[in-house]
Every structure is written in structure tokens, then in C-alpha cells.
């Protein structure tokens, strides 16, 4: 009972009775949100429909919500006929879980430290970190660095370079700075070390932002393929899901250089039984589905909210 009331309080309505203003706002709100759902759901449903539709028939276009000629062939091609998929799934999952959690931990430590106003290096390290968002040495120098460090074809190259993301740190730091200073003061008076404060006070209170950053980082790791291409392209044991999926896009995509003049020298043309559209859409569905299942788990932390009475200093 108490929990339910606590949860209900979280919107700004308080626990007064409904007024006319409340009702009006609710109605407008609900309608607007439903409209939003319609336009944001559409691309995904459309993608789903194309992915289950026969590839040659898809060329005709005109598929909106449902497939016209249902087939599992597109998925079959990607999941069943591709021997590298199981390795790819494992590596991508490892990146997301292992890399994700380590990165969140690192972010938390750095964010906490940068939130301490009396930290001696704060004024130096904060811009030091932030500026990294706006410049890059370039693809070649980074590549040479990674090679010199021996990280080519090494799983660590997926984890180490991006371990501390400036953006994530800033978001987390902003949240931590919003936490009541009094708790930390009280803990310090009690003689707690910084580690203790971090783990026993900051960590439980920051669950919403930690859940958010976990989501960002894990999704980033799950969707990454460019680093695979750069650093692990010749190592089949380190392939990732998105990289395998990217491989399947034929050269008729926007990026791959395609000398159409040279193509004319090559003789007979053959129609593709699996067109780029059908591969792209099946790819999207395969990559997104695990995220859809993980997100509700993280969502709990957003709704849970602040439980002030929970942790006594």
C-alpha cells in the first residue's frame, strides 16, 4: 500500500483531487503521446514488415504495416546460413555486458570525483575531459597508436579506448551534484573513506542515472562495428553482430565505392535474390530485439525514484 502511494506521488499531481485543469491537461497529454507513438512506432513496424517479406516482391515497394508475401528467407540467410553469427553474438554480448559495466563503473568513479568541489585537480581535469569530445587525432594516427600498443586483433580494443566517455561523465556528474550534500557531510563526519561514500551512498542514490548511462554504453557497444572493421577485420574470432550484418549489405549501399563504369565491363547481370532492403531490415530487427528485452529491466530504475528515507547517514 505504502509503496503504491509513494509511486503515485511522482508525477506533479500530488495527492489532491482532480481539478478541471488536471483533466484537460491529462486529455491533451494522452492524445499527443498516442500520436507520437503512432509516428514513432511506424518505422519499426514497417521495418518488421519488410524483413518478413519476399525480397523480390519488396522491390515493388508499397509495404506499410504487413508483409505481402510472408517469408522467413531473409532471417534464414542471416542467422542460419552464416556460420559466423554465433561467434558474433557472443562477442557483441560480451562487449555490451563486460565492456558496458566496466565503462559505467569508470564513469561513476570519474563523475563522483569531478563532482567534489574541493578536489584539487577538478578545474584542470574537467576541461581536459570535455575537450576530448570535440577533437580527434584522425583515423590514421589512432590506428597507428592502437597498432603500436599491440591492440590489433585484441578484445581489449573494444573496451579500453572508449572506457571513459566525456559526455556520460558530465551527465552523471550533474546528477551527483544534485544529491543532498548533507548525506555526504554526515558520512565524512562519521569517518567514512571516499571509497565507502562512493559505494554505500552515491551508488544507491544514483541508480536512475546509472541505469541511463548503462543503457547508453551497452547499446553503443552492442551496435558498434566500425572499430571491428578498423582493428579486428582479419580476426574472425572477434567479429561482432553488427559487423557481420554490415558485411551482408551488398556494394549497392551508399558508402561502398562502386565504379558503375567498370561494372559495364563485367558481362551479364544477375538479379539478387536477397536485396539490400530485405537484408537491412532483417538486420535492424535482429540487432534491436535484444535491446527491447533489456530496456524494461532498466526502466524499473527510472520509476523507482528517490527513496530518501532508505539510507541513513
Amino acid at each position, binding site marked *: 500500500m505504502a509503496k503504491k502511494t509513494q509511486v503515485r506521488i511522482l508525477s506533479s499531481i500530488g495527492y489532491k483531487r482532480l*481539478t478541471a485543469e488536471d483533466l484537460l491537461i491529462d486529455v491533451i497529454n494522452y492524445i499527443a503521446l498516442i500520436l507520437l*507513438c503512432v509516428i514513432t512506432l511506424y*518505422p519499426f513496424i514497417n*521495418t518488421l514488415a519488410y524483413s518478413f517479406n519476399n525480397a523480390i516482391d519488396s522491390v515493388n515497394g508499397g509495404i506499410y504495416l504487413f508483409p505481402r508475401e510472408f517469408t522467413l528467407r531473409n532471417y534464414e540467410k542471416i542467422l542460419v546460413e552464416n556460420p559466423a553469427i554465433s561467434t558474433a553474438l557472443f562477442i557483441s554480448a560480451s562487449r555490451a555486458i563486460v565492456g558496458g559495466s566496466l565503462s559505467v563503473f569508470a564513469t561513476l568513479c570519474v563523475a563522483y*570525483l569531478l563532482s567534489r568541489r574541493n578536489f584539487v585537480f*577538478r*578545474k584542470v581535469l574537467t576541461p*581536459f575531459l570535455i575537450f576530448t569530445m570535440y577533437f580527434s587525432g584522425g583515423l*590514421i594516427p589512432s590506428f597507428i597508436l592502437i597498432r603500436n600498443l599491440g591492440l590489433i586483433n585484441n578484445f581489449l580494443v573494444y573496451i579500453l579506448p572508449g572506457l571513459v566517455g566525456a559526455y556520460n561523465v558530465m551527465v552523471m556528474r550533474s546528477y551527483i551534484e544534485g544529491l543532498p550534500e548533507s548525506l555526504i557531510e554526515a558520512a565524512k563526519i562519521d569517518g567514512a573513506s571516499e571509497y565507502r561514500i562512493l559505494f554505500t551512498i552515491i551508488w544507491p542514490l544514483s541508480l536512475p542515472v546509472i541505469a541511463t548511462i548503462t543503457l547508453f554504453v551497452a547499446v553503443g557497444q552492442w551496435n558498434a562495428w566500425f572499430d571491428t572493421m578498423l582493428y579486428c577485420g582479419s580476426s574472425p574470432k572477434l567479429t561482432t553482430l553488427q559487423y557481420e550484418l554490415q558485411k551482408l549489405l551488398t556494394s549497392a549501399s551508399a558508402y561502398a565505392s562502386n565504379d558503375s563504369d567498370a561494372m559495364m565491363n563485367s558481362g551479364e547481370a544477375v538479379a539478387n535474390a536477397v536485396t539490400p532492403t530485405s537484408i537491412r531490415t532483417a538486420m535492424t530487427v535482429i540487432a534491436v530485439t535484444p535491446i527491447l528485452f533489456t530496456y524494461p529491466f532498466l526502466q524499473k530504475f527510472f520509476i523507482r525514484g528517490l527513496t530518501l528515507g532508505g539510507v541513513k547517514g
Partner: protein
Amino acid sequence: MSVYGNKADIPTTRIIPKKKKDLIKTIIDQRQLIILILPFMALVLVFNYLPIWGWIMAFQHYVPGKGISGSQFVGIANFIEAFTDDNFINSIKNTLLTSILKITTGFLSAITLAVMLNEVRSIAFKRTVQTISYLPYFVSWVVAVNIVYMALSPADGIVNILLTKSGLVKDPVPFMGEPKYFYWVVALSNVWKNVGWNAIIYLAAMTGIDPELYEAASIDGAGRLRRIFAVTLPCITATIKILLVLNIGNLMNAGFEQVYLLSNPSNISASRTIDVYIYTYALRSGRLSYGTAIGIFNSTIAITLIMISNYISKKIDGYGIF
């Protein structure tokens, strides 16, 4: 701001000592903190700052075969070439217009969505809407742009059908066929694709709002709308400010994939942004020096912008991000 504002108090006394021996004492006192942060900062130094030596390529005529040590030094020739190229100047203008519009619409939409979701009382509905609203984030731009083209088609696109049937316009509007619409197409399609995802941060921040504040406000007689402006928004001001300052630094970055895919022969004068320019004239031709030079220009502007916006932010309420 407001009476019901942020509860964090901001100390005004100087904390970091100026004298040298006090400084050393402070370092020793805070050694736990320093040890904790050191390895991570070392990683940042190695992976982000070390590659900067590659910037020297911008002052060379880099030939992949000869490497950096073997390539000829040309001073600022690359920079001069960029600034005397009409296409480049034009691309700067396009980038700025696109970015400003993207950032503005992005912010307003994400915050509005977060506020709206925050006002929903049914947990099930809230979760459902949240999940659905971020789905487009995962659909790649290639797929998304195809949908945009179809929706905006003058012949049978849904947007034009609605506009003409409702009588708002007489003839279908060729959104993708004229440069003047381009910036809005980019901004609004960006909103559609990212609003759900961007709202997540604000929602997380909103869960940190002390419910007592709402109680106090409603006891004082504030209506629903008033409570939003008096409690919800001020409490996430810190988050908004951080994200705004960080995003202003990205003004020169209008995004490559989305813009490239949305460009076509008809709107090319508007759709040639800096990233597309670099792709066409530097990357595709293997002119790495040229690309690096433009990249340095971008980074310099970005860092200058962020320092300016931070300064302004401090002037407003004494609190900047660094």
C-alpha cells in the same frame, strides 16, 4: 529561478589552496581520490590526446606510401585552399544553419516529451510510450531516410496528402526538391528519430526530484501547469544546461549519414555540409592532409564555442560546467 529550486547548496568560499605547501598537503589528503581517478585519466590521455601528433598531416602533403615522416611539408597551403573554395564556405553556412535548427528543435522536443511523460500517472502507459518513442533511434538512417522520402513525396506521400486534403496548401509541396526546405527536413526527421532517446536523460533527472516539492507547491495553490514550470523544469535546469553547453560545442557537426542520405541533385546547394564536403573532396580522393586541415578548423571552432558558452553560463548564474 524559483523558491522550489534545486536543493544542492553552492559553497562560495575558496576551497583549493593557493600556497604551494598547502597544495602538496591537499594532494596528500586527497590521495585516495587521486589514485581512483588516475588510471582512467591515463586512458583518456593515451587514447584521445596522443593521436594528436597526427595533426601534423594537415601541414603536409600526405602521401600514404611515404607516411608522415616522408611526406612533404607545405605549411598552411591546405588551409588556404579550403578558405578560398566557394564550396567550402558554402558548406560552413549550411552546417551552421542545419545544426542550429537541429539543436534547438532537439532540445525543445526532448524536454517537452520528458515533461509530458512525467505527467502521466499510469505506469503501464508511461513505460509503453517510452519504449515505443525510442524505437526509431535503432532504425538505421538508411532505412529512416527511405521512409522520409516516401512520406514527403509530392505524389503519394502521407504528409502532402494530409496537407492538401486539409486545405492547408493547394499543391503538394516538394519538400525534398528545394534547398529552402532542407534544413527543416533534417531537423524534424532528426526529432522524429531521436526524441524518445534524448528524453531518457531528462526523465532520469526528473526521477530525482523530491516529491515534497510538489506537495509544497500544490499546498501553496499551484495548478498543474504552474507546478511544471515551478518545480519540474527548475529541478532539471542543471541537466539542461550541461547538455546545452555540450551540444553547442557540436555546432560544426551536423551529422554525416543523415545529411548525406537526404541530399539529392535538387537540394545540393543546401545539403553540402562540412562533413559531406570532407567526404567528397578529402576522403574519397584520399586527400588526408586536406581532410585533417578542415578537421582542425572544426575542432578549434568547437572548443572556442564551448568555452564561450561555458563563460556565458557562468555569467548567468555563477555555475558553468568547468
